[in-house]
């Protein structure tokens, strides 16, 4: 469906400029991506802030922090074919780094004067710790914290990636090991209450260098910072996607051996994709802490990690746009169901995942709206007539003209396979 000639229904009626532009969109994937990108930016920067109050907007901001994870999963799983079931680990590590800094700032000597050891976080005091553990000390500095947020998860991913990919551990085995890491980290955090805040997580976060992050103004600012970072992350992902590196990653997914015998160090390339995904997740985690005001092990373990994968799958694991819209959609659904029918949510997300895998392998982004509608019409009309059942399907015009009438899903359509 690449270089198809535009069906061009009524070219004469259109101004030539517009006609040329739409024709270009049908053939040029890059131009199409740029349009989708602008639409995404408009939706996040203009539409949402205009239509949602600060409570809802803050909620969207929270969902968008998972968008970072989804972007990473598209690069790592969708493009390079490496399924990680442990993205919660990196999300959590990024989030904890941020939370540790904020917690230390909230635990100054004055406000913790009733503790037996003032100046350390409250949960440490409850657990009879009398001084700040050494690994907490760097988080007194904002600079060190900002460095640690991508660095700590990135290094963990680097070590895991090299250890496994150099030994040719891949596919299901890799997924299982990452899942085990997620289980280990959440158990570790819960078990070491005095050092990590345990199952409650790190709570009561107040200010960032004296700036109160709980006010409405702060929430607006953080929302826009979050969107800015997300668009930046998406832009980086696009630049990779369009480069030779992006083609190598997809080639590794489809024909790993050929890439290896072309002289590429496949293990390093895979490690790169995995590290990139982990750094993205970590940035998301840090923004989560800032916007939601706490971090806890419930965002680290196996269940949240799998939910992140499902969100990416629903949106479309090979589409950078699809992943972001999918994350929004799945998390909206999660909020709705957990409020109205809390016991149903796990069943809903489970069936959603199965449904997507069975019916839409490329997620919502894989739906070609025009084709789907035409196919439906053809089927419907056939049911009424007495034509043979196995008559060849009517030729369906595969129109690559992007149509994005609604906010979800269709924008990513065609973003990938063309």
């Amino acid at each position, binding site marked *: 469906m690449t270089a198809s000639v535009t069906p061009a229904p009524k070219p004469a009626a259109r101004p030539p400029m517009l006609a040329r532009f739409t024709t270009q969109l049908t053939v040029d994937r890059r131009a199409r991506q740029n349009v989708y990108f602008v639409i995404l930016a408009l939706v996040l920067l203009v539409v949402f802030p205009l239509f949602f109050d600060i409570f809802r907007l803050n909620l969207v901001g929270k969902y968008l922090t998972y968008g970072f994870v989804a972007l990473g999963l598209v690069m790592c799983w969708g493009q390079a074919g490496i399924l990680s079931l442990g993205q919660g680990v990196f999300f959590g590590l990024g989030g904890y780094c941020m939370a540790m800094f904020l917690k230390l700032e909230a635990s100054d000597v004055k406000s913790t004067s009733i503790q037996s050891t003032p100046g350390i976080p409250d949960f440490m005091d409850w657990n009879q710790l009398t001084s700040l553990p050494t690994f907490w000390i760097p988080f007194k500095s904002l600079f060190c914290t900002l460095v640690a947020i991508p660095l700590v998860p990135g290094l963990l991913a680097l070590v895991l990636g090299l250890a496994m990919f150099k030994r040719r551990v891949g596919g299901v085995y890799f997924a299982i090991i990452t899942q085990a890491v997620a289980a280990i980290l959440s158990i570790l955090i819960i078990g070491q209450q005095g050092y990590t805040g345990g199952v409650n997580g790190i709570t009561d976060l107040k200010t960032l260098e004296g700036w109160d992050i709980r006010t409405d103004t702060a929430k607006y600012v953080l929302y826009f910072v979050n969107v800015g970072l997300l668009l930046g992350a998406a832009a980086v992902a696009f630049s990779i996607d369009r480069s*030779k590196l992006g*083609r190598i990653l*997809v080639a590794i997914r489809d024909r790993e051996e050929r890439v290896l015998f072309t*002289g590429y*160090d496949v293990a390093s390339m895979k490690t790169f994709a995995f590290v990139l995904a982990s750094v993205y997740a970590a940035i998301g985690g840090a923004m989560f802490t800032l916007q939601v005001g706490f971090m806890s092990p419930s965002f680290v373990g196996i269940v949240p990690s799998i939910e992140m994968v499902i969100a990416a799958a629903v949106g479309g694991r090979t589409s950078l746009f699809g992943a972001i819209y999918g994350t929004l959609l799945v998390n909206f659904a999660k909020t709705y169901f957990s409020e109205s029918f809390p016991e149903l949510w796990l069943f809903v997300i489970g069936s959603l995942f199965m449904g997507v895998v069975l019916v839409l392998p490329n997620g919502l982004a894989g739906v070609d709206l025009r084709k789907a509608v035409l196919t439906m019409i053809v089927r419907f009309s056939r049911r009424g007539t007495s034509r043979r059942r196995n008559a060849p399907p009517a030729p369906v015009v595969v129109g690559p003209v992007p149509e994005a009438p609604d906010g979800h899903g269709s924008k990513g359509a065609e973003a990938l*396979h063309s």
Partner: protein
Amino acid sequence: MTEGIRTESILEIEGVSVSFDGFKALDDLSLSIERDEIRAVIGPNGAGKTTLLDIITGRTPPTSGRVRFKEIELTGLREYQIVRKGIGRKFQTPSVHESLTVFENLEMSYPDARTWWSAWRFGRTREVIETVENIAETIYLKDRLHDRAEALGHGQKQWLEIGALLIQRPSLLLLDEPVAGMSVRDREKTAELLNALGKGRAVVVVEHDMEFVKQIAHQVSVLHQGRLLAEGPMESIQKDPRVIEVYLGH
């Protein structure tokens, strides 16, 4: 060994054995390939032909013996390192990147920008474009440059894979059944292609098609049950009673 003078060899396989759970796929095999020759390796199914290529390219480690390429010991190197030393391998089934265009397939094989950073920064310079176009001409795909590989015919995919090797300027090409499933016309064109490769490049072809072997091979090595059964020019191989018995006769 009909040729009197042995020119310098580019690949030396010395006493290589491979066993999989006791089954000996290769049994004390020694083979030497010269710098400019086209060598055909033939033999019945299970003779160890593909295993031989696996050994050279580092896909399977030998149980014993050694492989030397231009005086460099290859055993112990990883596949991609061996490729970078100048050995290209074509697989038995066409193995090209279907969703990429012919141009992108060749570009990906262009021997530059092999780390993630340089691959990200890699740009299509004039040199890259010219090299890709030259290779496309050689493999008869000049007018298909911007078609996706999945749209190519079977034979064209095989050529594309050969082209992807050629662009790396390897000094040793290993081709596993390059003409399997090809039409007669395409076979001839493939033979032309290989014969035109010229000096400074050795080619090892694993092949079943005797007509094709006759057209291209300078020397033929016959494998049987992991051992070297006979070696020499095609005419003498065809007359060898042992070869006739195990392979050609049936």
